[in-house]
């Protein structure tokens, strides 16, 4: 298939015609799912806010199921397809492998997404995102997810194919860029994730149509979480890649060490398959040895990887800023960063929120014995709103401020509001995560319609602080929804009404990436000339570690105060 290549005048990035269209459509569909997810989010919040309690129970559980599915699967996967095509075709300046098949993948994902949502809104599939057996959804609920997964799997295949095309057609020399490498780890993990998903959702689909008699509840949980958690590892690999990407574009930041950053990505691949374990820590049937070994992905090696990225990403920014002359004190590089640029501010809030809130809470939650204090409480969604939303979604939102001008060739409208949006969304979502975790620490359940237990044979009164936390959840949840809505308005408004930008020269052939200058190479080889110390990052990382250690041991203290268990 003949195609054309457009060189963006603003960035120098080269977009292949088919890849560009696919990225646009995937991103647009992703945003539409985010809209559905956002509306359902508002309804969920207004119901869990004890003072409002908007929806009746049946509608609440239906809407909550839709919220989980549309946010975690539909929005994120569609956006990730765009990221994969960008990291391969655009960054490697080559044609996309088998674009027709990519359209098939896209259609499968759209059809699957709609099918699954039809099942949910028909009201017979209020089984939550996890769809734990033996609670049963309508067959097309499972089938819809399977179609989306098949589409995503094809997308990953096209990504790998595009890497081969680039290598074969020699559009670059040496190794693939770090961002592409990170996207590659995401795609490899995605293949594992989808394979795990197929091996549990296919039988579950057959069970829902009556071909299989029974599915073991614990087996389901173990295999399902190899999908459920590994998919979050896909998100982590994707959004960490985007952090590096934004650091590179905004600051011209170079990784402190290619070796360290790539090794950290590799750790994600090596240990992710054990991710399902830490969802089973309070389950019957698994031995303590198995739980301990697999906690937080085999002896914390994936945590180690995230801690490394948490150092190298701000470190790369600091080094780039210091080279530009922002060398005063520990933090001039950070103070004088472009805080008014939503691409950067969103990325940095994503980085800090993911590390301090999502990361620390995740490891504590994933500690074998401590899990008993938090399992299935509101702490769990609090944690993953800090990881998946502050981490992944906010990173995706930030890069969109970059992609709208480059990819869609439109200027962002209302620049003042664009500046505010990452703060409104990032900060309210971070506080939301925090107060949700607070409520969970006090025992409040997740996925629960009525914390007053109306209709129960007994009474149980939660502590007043739990009601306070749930009220704050309501307030900050609504603020976060406003922040998300603002983003959708800005992006959709810019696509429709933004000033059209110059597309740049179009050519029939790709222009290969020029080979690196040997001069720069020799300087860095000897070390000292290019090396810049990053004391500010050391301080930030130490702060993270100290918070981590304190919070970790506080929870052991909590645990030591409950009933004795053995």
């Amino acid at each position, binding site marked *: 298939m003949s195609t054309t290549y457009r060189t963006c005048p603003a960035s120098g990035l080269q977009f292949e015609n088919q890849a560009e269209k696919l990225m646009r459509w995937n991103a647009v569909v992703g945003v539409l799912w985010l809209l559905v997810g956002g509306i359902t989010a508002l309804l969920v919040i207004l119901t869990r806010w004890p003072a409002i309690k908007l929806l009746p*129970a049946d509608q609440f*559980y239906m809407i909550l199921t839709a919220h989980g599915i549309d946010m975690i699967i539909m929005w994120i996967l569609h956006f990730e397809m765009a990221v994969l095509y960008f990291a391969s075709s655009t960054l490697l300046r080559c044609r996309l492998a088998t674009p027709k098949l990519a359209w098939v993948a896209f259609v499968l994902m759209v059809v699957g997404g709609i099918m699954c949502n039809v099942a949910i809104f028909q009201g017979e599939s209020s089984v*939550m995102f996890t769809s734990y057996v*033996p*609670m049963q959804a309508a067959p097309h609920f499972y089938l819809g997810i399977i179609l989306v997964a098949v589409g995503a799997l094809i997308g990953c295949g096209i990504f790998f194919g595009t890497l081969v095309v680039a290598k074969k057609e020699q559009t670059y*020399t*040496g*190794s693939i*860029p*770090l961002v592409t490498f990170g996207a590659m780890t995401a795609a490899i993990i995605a293949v594992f994730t989808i394979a795990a998903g197929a091996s549990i959702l296919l039988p579950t689909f057959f069970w829902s149509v009556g071909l299989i008699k029974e599915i073991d*509840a614990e087996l389901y*949980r173990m295999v399902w979480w190899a999908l459920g958690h590994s998919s979050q590892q896909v998100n982590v690999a994707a959004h960490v890649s985007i952090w*590096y*990407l934004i*650091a*590179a574009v905004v600051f*011209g930041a*170079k990784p402190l*060490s290619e*070796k360290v950053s790539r090794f950290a990505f590799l750790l994600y691949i090596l240990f992710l398959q054990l991710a399902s374990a830490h969802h089973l*820590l309070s389950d*019957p*049937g698994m031995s*303590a040895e198995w739980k*301990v070994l697999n*906690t*937080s992905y085999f002896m914390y*090696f994936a945590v180690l990887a995230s*801690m*490394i990225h948490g*150092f190298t990403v701000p470190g790369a920014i600091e080094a780039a800023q210091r080279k530009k002359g922002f060398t005063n004190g520990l933090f001039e590089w950070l103070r004088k960063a472009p805080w008014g640029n939503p691409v950067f501010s969103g990325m940095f809030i994503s980085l800090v929120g993911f590390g301090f809130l999502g990361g620390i809470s995740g490891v504590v939650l994933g*500690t074998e*014995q401590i899990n*008993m*204090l938090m*399992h*299935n*409480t509101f702490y769990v969604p609090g944690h993953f709103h800090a990881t998946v939303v502050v981490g992944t979604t906010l990173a995706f939102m930030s890069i969109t401020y970059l992609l709208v001008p480059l990819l869609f060739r439109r200027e962002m409208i209302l620049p003042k509001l664009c500046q505010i949006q990452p703060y409104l969304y990032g900060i309210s979502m971070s506080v939301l995560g925090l107060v949700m975790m607070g409520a969970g620490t*006090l*025992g409040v359940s*997740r*996925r*629960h*319609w009525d914390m007053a237990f109306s*209709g*129960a*044979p007994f009474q*149980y009164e939660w502590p007043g602080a739990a009601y306070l936390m749930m009220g704050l959840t309501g307030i900050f949840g609504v603020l976060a929804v406003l922040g998300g809505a603002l983003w959708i308005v800005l992006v959709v408004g810019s696509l429709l009404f933004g000033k059209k930008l110059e597309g740049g020269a179009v050519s029939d052939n790709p222009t290969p990436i020029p080979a*690196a200058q040997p001069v720069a*190479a020799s300087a860095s080889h000897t070390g000292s000339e290019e090396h810049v110390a990053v004391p500010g990052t*050391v301080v930030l990382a130490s702060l993270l*570690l100290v918070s*981590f250690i304190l919070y970790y041991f506080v929870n*052991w203290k909590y645990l*030591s105060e*409950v*009933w*004795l*268990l*053995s």
Partner: protein
Amino acid sequence: MSAILPPSERLWWKQPIDKTEWAWIGIAFIWAMTMFGMMIYWHIYGKQNLSNEAYKTTPEMFAAKAEKFIAENTVRTETDQNIPVVKVPAGGDGYLIARLWNWYPILELEAGKQYKIHLSSMDYQHGFSLQPVNINIQVLPGYEHVVKMTPTKSGTYSIVCNEYCGIGHHTMLGRIYVK
């Protein structure tokens, strides 16, 4: 030059790693191993470890055992639904059924005594969430989980269901008395 271009040094894997980075990797690794060791330490010296004792069962088998236990140990009934209050023999076995949508029966325990509480579900998955202590354990159909518990303080405790189990999920509230 940057993360979106191929590494400027072609043999990037031969470049030395800066000592600050090494130090951070080392510290992060030590912390990871400390957290790993902490779980093992708690298994040896800690007093709150979730039991590993679990058996495959069926709702019928488990219900039969629980009914026998209830018939032998009921001390009174409570509420207009006449829910039996069952005194678990000190050091003995107690059975707790999770089903749509109640925890059955009410258990009566004594502070400072150890009990073996058997948990299983008759239907969907449920979540045993003891409040206000805040101990949370997954309860599955087909699995009998035997958890050794020693209440530390007397009082009236509630069991909230914290695994979504359908429309009546929020009414699934159980009770444990500790004397």
